[in-house]
């Protein structure tokens, strides 16, 4: 008996020692299917003309644009201005969230528990279809259809936020990804202009390598961000704007992987396993010549680069692939953040949500936010001469781009995007070829 008791206790102890990883909320086995959840959601309240609630409405906003975030200062001003203008009618209470992953986990957990925050934002790691499946998101369609508000947005922005005919999110921050190069390092290698084709790019990379310069700072650690952006650009150059329509079966994915692998011949020795800090460090420290990232990074060239880097960086369009389906000038882009809201049963609260989102999407505020953070927005904005030159060049390129297509991670299911770093390791370390790389991605998506 004693032995049995001892065994039971030992087992219980072992079990508790290893108990972990439980998500915060349970899916009830008897939970209604998605369709039912959607139909059970309360009918959207109709907002009256003008906003005069019976009493002050409080909206809770778990917000990531706080603390040291590049948008924190101006975004804070925007919220304060809203609270001042709507004093006695509406008040937005910011709940500070400084860690992106923790923020994502929080939103996901709250949605799964049926407690969507009044206001929140989601980034590209969320798939809007999944969010819609929760049945907990406010439908903005009635407020945006044929309204002045919808006229503010770039073409296609609202369509991207539409799932099953409902606009379930307001596109907020967007981005296009240009190529940036160090003019001094290129000049030392005998180049005054950035190459226009990938063949020319690799010839230039040879010249840079001969000078002991890292041509392309790349990474396979974290989410393999810079490598993923290059892969997206190469995919567009080879497969054209429709490259994602046939999924990973399009031969462009294999061809692009071959080009990407070749780029690793011209990168730093720490690229395998490197994170964004390593890549950024190489470019900011004058060790690497060609760089790609979103517009939010552009102010850092001047702020953090050595040897007066800010004045030596120029914008370039991604190269063309000879024989590819892409058009020179086509760019990869993304919607960096969508604004969402929990389903509201109270008409006043729904109206307050709409008022707040309209308020923070006013172009005058967005100009200020863009200047302070380098960010771009889904709302159409005129070119701003206060912006740094590379940002102005990027905006001009975006405005004249024949197409802007979402980058690889945005265009693929989450699991495939998350499998990219490991598949890239295999490709770069030579354990698989380009076809094997694509096969690994396919396997991750199954």
């Amino acid at each position, binding site marked *: 008996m004693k032995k049995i008791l001892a065994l039971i206790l*030992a*087992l*219980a102890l*072992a*079990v*508790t*020692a*290893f*108990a*972990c*990883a*439980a*998500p915060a909320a*349970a*899916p*009830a*086995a008897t*939970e*209604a*299917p*998605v369709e039912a*959840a959607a139909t059970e959601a309360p009918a959207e309240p109709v907002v009256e003309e003008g906003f005069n609630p019976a009493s002050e409405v409080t909206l809770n906003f778990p917000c990531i644009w706080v603390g040291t975030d590049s948008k924190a200062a101006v975004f804070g001003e925007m919220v304060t201005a809203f609270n001042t203008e709507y004093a006695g009618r509406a008040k937005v209470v910011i709940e500070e969230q400084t860690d992106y992953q923790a923020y994502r986990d929080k939103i*996901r*957990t709250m*949605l*799964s528990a049926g407690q969507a925050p009044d206001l929140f934002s989601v980034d590209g790691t969320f798939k809007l279809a*999944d*969010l819609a*499946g*929760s049945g907990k998101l406010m439908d903005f369609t009635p407020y945006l259809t044929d309204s002045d508000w919808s006229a503010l947005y770039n073409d296609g922005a609202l369509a991207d936020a539409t799932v099953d005919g409902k606009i379930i999110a307001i596109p907020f921050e967007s981005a296009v990804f240009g190529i940036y190069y160090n003019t001094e390092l290129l000049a030392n290698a005998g180049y005054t202009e950035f190459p226009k084709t990938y063949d020319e790019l690799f010839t230039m990379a040879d010249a840079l390598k001969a000078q002991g310069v890292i041509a392309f700072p790349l990474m*396979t*650690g*974290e989410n393999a961000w810079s490598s993923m952006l290059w892969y997206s650009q190469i995919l567009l150059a080879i497969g054209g704007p429709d490259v994602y329509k046939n999924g990973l079966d399009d031969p462009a994915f294999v061809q692009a992987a071959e080009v990407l692998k070749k780029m690793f011949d011209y990168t*730093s*020795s*720490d*690229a*395998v*396993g*490197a994170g964004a800090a390593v890549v950024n460090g190489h470019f900011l420290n004058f060790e690497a010549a060609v760089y790609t990232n979103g517009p939010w990074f552009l102010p850092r060239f001047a702020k953090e680069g050595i040897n007066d880097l800010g004045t030596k960086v120029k914008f370039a369009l991604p190269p063309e692939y000879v024989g590819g389906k892409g058009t020179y000038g086509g760019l990869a882009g993304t919607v960096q953040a969508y604004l969402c809201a929990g389903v509201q049963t109270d008409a006043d609260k729904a109206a307050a949500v709409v008022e707040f989102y309209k308020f923070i999407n006013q172009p005058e505020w967005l100009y200020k936010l863009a200047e302070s953070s380098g960010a771009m927005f889904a709302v159409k904005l005129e070119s701003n001469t206060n912006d740094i030159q590379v940002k102005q060049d990027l905006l001009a390129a975006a405005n004249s781009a024949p197409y802007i297509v979402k980058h690889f991670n945005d265009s693929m299911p*989450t*699991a495939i995007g*998350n499998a990219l*770093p*490991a598949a890239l*390791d*295999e490709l770069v*370390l030579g*354990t698989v070829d380009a076809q094997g790389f694509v096969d690994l991605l396919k396997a991750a998506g199954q």
Partner: protein
Amino acid sequence: MKPTKKDRLGMALFMTPALVLFVLFFLIPVCYVLIVSLFQWNGMSAASFVGVKNYFTIWKDPVFRRSVLNNVIWALVAACVQVPLSVLMALILNRKPRGWKFFRTVYFFPQVISGIALAMLWSAMYNSEYGLINGFLHLIGKGELAINWLGTLNTALPALLIYWVFYIGYYMVIVMSDLSGVDRDFYEAAEIDGASKIQQAWFISLPMVKSSILTCMTLAAVMGLRQFEQVYLLTNGGPANRTSTMVLYLYKQIQNTRYGPANAASVMLICVGVIVILGIRALFQIERKRRK
């Protein structure tokens, strides 16, 4: 003396609060993990029952199988290398050589430093461009040996293990505290009988602290099986998932919003943990019976 009814009631009353907390915060979550592992669920939409499919799915995944293997390697290295090293240091320092207090502090010091800080430190040490190890190799004219230690298939896991295996202070202190309770008379008697220092350590010290060593081995194996922070921070499972562990695997499944496979991996981790712990206990039982 058998406990009376009153004694039993008293014991039950004292045990109840801990039992309630244990059930609320351990047993119920474990049951929950077990239930969720039988569902397909993305964390937002409704879950659908899939039975044991998630278990087959993860077992077919070579990354999961490699993670299990890596965890077993971690546990074995912890139990068979880290703990013996700790015991050796404890035996040496227990003889109180000159400066033993200094060395005890030095060996224990890493335990009070954040694991994140240590991981960052070692990440910098291993870096191929500006790391200390490659810098030293270049300094002594062996630059051709300089590699990306954490980014090469053959060196990534050993590099992680080497960094971790030398943090022996925690187990060393446990064994030292047990050694300090060993009666000095045993050693004096052994010395009179002509036993050498090594014989004294082997035939007196080690048998007397066997329970501490078992505790250390169990703790070390558990820590090995739960490896996450170091791997996540230093390699994130790379290169090419070669250093992935089970906890990291399930974390990545959660990131992929695949809660069913994530929880199936949790259940498998529990099973592997139970097997390893029972294995260690069984080894000591066999040894005890053999001595009898």
